[in-house]
């Protein structure tokens, strides 16, 4: 990074921290600290909900995901708009009517204390761990590519935002997210524009798309219907798993995860909450499509400029100083030779598209790409042997490598700032939610019930700080998780189905009682963890299984007990 990059990065981060602290200058009670006195308009709800969901991983890992696996990941978001509709019909009015601080408070009013405690515990466990990953994910990438110390990077990413999150609560979180998203979108648009401009002369935007398409990377919709095939259920991203699995995951995340519920509870009315959520349903899918498209354009770019054999330079340095260096060098030579042939094949394809305007045979180009991918896979296997502690999956490094290697000074600093801001937006909301669940569901409910408002606000700040430190500690121990955007979603899927099942029982199964739901939830959670261990189904389906199991068992147990009575 050059001096200009450091200047842009520092100014942007200081601006956000200063703005967050300025927004926190008002003295508050508990409602102000966690709900901003329910005063926010719909567009702030929209930006806050989007800023909470879009973490640094979204902007770092998603383009890499498209580069390696294509755009089919976008299907994962197809269930989200449908989930927004269900939230607006059932969840939002119920939460508002009961004037709750946390989603789990609602469960005690509907069922009993133990169901509330169990759900809140599952949330704290899941959110505490996944926030740690949200800190570690950008930290490990930045530290590898820029040579920064990983422990200090974790502390900077997870620590600086604590300043304004502790002091300002929900208001600071929402207002900084607004500013963060503006900077993030500006940065991503600039990256996309520069990427297209950096394509060689005579290579048009449509040519880049055609090349990526020929390599099977523009597979935005994969309509599989062979559900009798076992492979169907293990396939992570297709139209059906995206709509059904994605729906359950989004409903769980937005309806039962306090980091999201806490955002739309700050709205000034049910109408503002609904508008914010529905707009999120309309904006999120195209936004994700755009981010993935950037990844496929990076792939097209690297058809003309040779990419590294492996995108994590720290690991490459390690293997080059090990006994495996000759083998790695041989693979590098093979990769170089294939690249030259592939580049020629890509040029020939483009010439044919330009001058003959006909459907051309891309067989040679595709075959050479497969050969290059095969060599890359061999390199990854070698890395796995040579540097066992290292992450041998470089998906998360691709986009940042491109930024650092290809984009001009100043823009690099801005895009590093984008990564920090995206991380801060989601982490700040998570810390606020973890603190509110700890205070409202545990401390105020069971530990110290007669405190004053000032005492609870003071304790909320301590809990926010405590969770911040905990998440940084988790980040210091996280390692080797593969694609980090998937790791966060997998972790969520292990718990979300069960939590959602509890909430759906509360909303739609009026006859079911608390004890039936409580034991069904414990059973469902054990089944979900078991299914994950034996790799029977893809993680998205775990949300469906967990949810339906809670509802089915609760109905059954309730029927048995009510029959006895």
């Amino acid at each position, binding site marked *: 990074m050059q001096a200009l990059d450091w200047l842009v990065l520092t100014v942007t981060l200081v601006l956000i921290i200063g703005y967050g602290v300025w927004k926190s200058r008002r003295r508050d009670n508990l409602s102000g600290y966690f709900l901003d006195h329910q005063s926010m308009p719909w567009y702030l709800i929209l930006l806050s909900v989007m800023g909470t969901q879009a973490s640094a991983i979204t902007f770092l890992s998603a383009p890499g995901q498209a580069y390696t696996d294509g755009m089919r990941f976008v299907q994962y978001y197809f269930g989200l708009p449908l989930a927004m509709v269900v939230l607006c019909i059932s969840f939002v009015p119920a939460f508002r009517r009961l004037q709750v601080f946390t989603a789990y408070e609602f469960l005690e009013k509907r069922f009993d204390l133990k169901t509330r405690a169990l759900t809140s515990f599952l949330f704290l466990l899941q959110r505490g761990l996944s926030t740690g990953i949200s800190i570690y994910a950008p930290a490990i990438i930045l530290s590898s590519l820029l040579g920064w110390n990983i422990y200090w990077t974790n502390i900077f990413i997870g620590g600086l935002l604590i300043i304004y999150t502790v002091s300002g609560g929900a208001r600071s979180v929402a207002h900084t997210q607004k500013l963060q998203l503006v900077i993030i979108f500006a940065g991503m648009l600039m990256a996309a524009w520069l990427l297209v401009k950096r394509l060689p002369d005579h290579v048009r935007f449509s040519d880049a798309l055609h090349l990526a*398409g020929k390599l099977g990377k523009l597979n*935005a919709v994969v309509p599989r219907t062979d559900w009798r095939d076992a492979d169907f259920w293990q396939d992570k991203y297709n*139209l059906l798993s995206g709509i059904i699995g994605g729906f359950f995951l989004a409903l769980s995340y937005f309806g039962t995860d306090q980091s999201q519920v806490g955002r739309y509870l700050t709205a000034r009315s049910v109408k503002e909450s609904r*508008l914010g959520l*529905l707009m999120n349903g309309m904006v999120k899918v195209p936004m994700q499509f755009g981010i993935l498209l950037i990844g496929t354009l990076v792939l097209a770019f690297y058809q003309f400029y040779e990419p590294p054999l492996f995108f994590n330079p720290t690991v490459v340095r390690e293997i080059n100083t090990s006994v495996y260096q000759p083998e790695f060098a041989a693979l590098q030579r093979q990769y170089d030779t294939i690249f030259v042939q592939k580049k020629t094949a890509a040029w020939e394809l483009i010439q044919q598209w330009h001058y003959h305007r006909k459907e051309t045979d891309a067989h040679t180009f595709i075959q050479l790409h497969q050969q290059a991918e095969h060599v890359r896979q061999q390199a990854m296997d070698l890395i796995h042997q040579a540097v066992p502690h290292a992450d041998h999956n470089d998906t998360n490094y691709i986009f940042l490598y491109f930024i650092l290697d290809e984009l001009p000074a100043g823009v690099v600093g801005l895009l590093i700032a984008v990564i920090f801001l995206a991380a801060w937006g989601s982490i700040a909301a998570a810390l606020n939610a973890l603190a509110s669940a700890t205070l409202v569901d545990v401390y105020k409910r069971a530990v110290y019930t007669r405190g004053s408002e000032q005492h609870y606000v003071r304790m909320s700040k301590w809990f926010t700080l405590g969770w911040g430190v905990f998440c940084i500690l988790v980040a210091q121990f996280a390692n080797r998780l593969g694609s980090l955007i998937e790791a966060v979603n997998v972790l969520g899927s292990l718990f979300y189905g069960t939590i959602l099942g509890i909430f759906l029982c509360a909303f739609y199964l009026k006859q079911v009682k608390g004890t039936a739901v409580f034991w069904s939830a414990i059973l469902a959670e054990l089944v979900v963890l078991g299914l994950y261990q034996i790799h029977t189904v893809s993680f998205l389906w775990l949300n469906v299984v967990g949810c339906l199991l809670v509802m089915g068992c609760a109905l059954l147990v309730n029927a048995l007990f009510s029959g006895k009575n």
Partner: protein
Amino acid sequence: MTSRKQLAPEEKPPLLSSWWMWYLLVVLWLLLLIGLFWWFTLAFS
């Protein structure tokens, strides 16, 4: 549900006559996006 009840003025949806119209709009938007993405997949494959 919302459309059948008398809504308080501050809870009435903007632009459209009821919230159910908004929900329909979101679902139609999703279907349109899936259709466009499907065309995109075919056009560049």
